[in-house]
């Protein structure tokens, strides 16, 4: 680096650049907040309190520790963002109730002892997530 480019110039570019891009990011965040109401199914959330309860069940049992939800989480077990569309409500409930399978050598899901009401709430949560506009992701129903 030549002698004309001084440390204080470098520092000023650092602060200027950072602040500029931080402000752009905040502006994009603001724009984001204006657009997502058309995509995030918030009307459903307001209409059906079971969805929020379902999200708590999802979190309190740390489902994300094995599964992905809209592609985020662990990669040990199937994507659940579209599980409502892939399997339907009855299969989901029956599956959760019947765990663990105990099949030797196969990946095991714990038994979470959810009540029927909790299972319905979890399914309501999955239905809500499956209807979020994700720009056609995943590429197919297998997730």
């Amino acid at each position, binding site marked *: 680096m030549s002698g004309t480019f001084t440390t204080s110039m470098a520092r000023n570019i650092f602060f200027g650049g950072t602040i500029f891009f*931080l402000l752009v990011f905040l502006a994009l965040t603001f724009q984001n907040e204006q657009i997502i109401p058309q995509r995030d199914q918030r009307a459903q959330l307001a209409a059906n309190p079971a969805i*929020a309860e379902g999200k708590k069940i999802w979190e*309190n049992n740390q489902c994300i520790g094995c599964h992905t939800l809209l592609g985020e989480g662990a990669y040990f077990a199937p994507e659940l963002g579209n599980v409502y569309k892939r399997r339907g409500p009855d299969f989901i409930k029956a599956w959760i109730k019947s765990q663990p399978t105990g099949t030797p050598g196969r990946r*095991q899901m714990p038994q979470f002892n959810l009540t029927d009401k909790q299972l319905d709430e979890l399914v309501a949560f999955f239905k809500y997530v499956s209807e979020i506009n994700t*720009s056609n992701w995943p590429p197919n129903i297998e997730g």
Partner: protein
Amino acid sequence: MQYKSQAVAKLYFIAAIGLFAAQILFGLVMGLQYVVGDFLFPAIPFNVARMVHTNALIVWLLMGFMGAAYYLIPEEAETELFSPKLAIAMFWIFLVAAALTVLGYLLVPYAGLAKMTGNDLWPTMGREFLEQPLPTKLGIVVVALAFLFNLTMTVLKGRKTSISLVLLLGLWGLAIFFLFSFYNPDNVVKDKFYWWWVVHLWVEGVWELILGAILAFVLIKVTGVDREVIEKWLYVIVTLTLISGILGTGHHYYWIGTPESWQLIGSIFSALEPIPFFGMTLFAFNMVNRRRREHPNKAAVLWALGTGVMAFLGAGVWGFLHTLSPVNYYTHGTQITAAHGHMAFYGAYVMAVLTIISYAMPLMRGRAANSNKAQVVEMWAFWLMTVSIVFITLFLTAAGILQVWLQRVSDAPVPFMVAQEQISLFYWMREWAGVVFLIGLIIYIWSFFIPGEEKAKA
């Protein structure tokens, strides 16, 4: 070591290495569960092993950053630490909180832990990497604030260098963005959007400032190159980091319900993210080539060069591999992500922490560098761990490509578990590479117990 209070770093470094070992052991458990699904079930289900694996990583890196800061800030500021006692007290609080949290994960079902720790009062748990119970999260905030207060006061009373400034900015950013872990709306799109303000703006933002500052500090010490030159490099690198990384957050906003405009913004800016990492590679090699002294600590120089290379490969190249939205459409949430995650965390952050440990530990133990034998052993550990993480990454990449093909691209896509069974060969190879990593880690720990000294303290 020029200031007595720098010695508090030793505690942090020792605990960091202990948690590093825990992280690797649980990683091996998970790796085996990928192929022998019922291994240790139901005692340690996969999700529990994963929480310990990832949380131990985060905590030991934070411990490493804190140790690094306590070591280098007094030397940069040319004054004793504002309060060594506060630093020691915070260390024990942090360690005990981390230990209790891990015990909670292992001994109590997660739903029970959530109930016991008052998650209903303010739900924050059950989100990836932010699984910690509310009291632990609050503890992290308290420890971080006390730590930042201590360091900021030290810098304010002493010399203010660019390295201190960049390091403090990185650490303050770390603390501030962690506050978003307390925001957990019912709306999944908003939850995910702001979750990334912790995760992305940490690892692809402010943590890189910490990494750059640590690397710059060690390079000044081991090469003797003028501070002026090194600080300019540091500013250029962190400028490129934040110019690309802040809007690069957009590469996480492609498929989670956020507007499609993020696909263009995220692709463009995250495609630039490898540049600052390449800058680090050039930086490390350039400074070592222009060295004005032969530092007796060859191992520390090796770690510094290794950080430059591996951060670029793991974070830069493997990040770019799947960052463009048309590619990411197929790779999102597959083993490709896992491959990138492993080499990026190792190359950037693990190696940076091991660099400062390698440089500072001998000094804190009263010698300029370890004995030749200890350094040779440490370098063996360097190569074993580094080569095996490369292989872990390559095997996971192969697994990811096959997974994408089988599950998402082929004419007859198969279900997740069918695809997983077909790629199990690669998971086995990954696990064996993991065993080699563990051997490397054991040798690394052994290197600390090899006696003898090269030179008296400078």
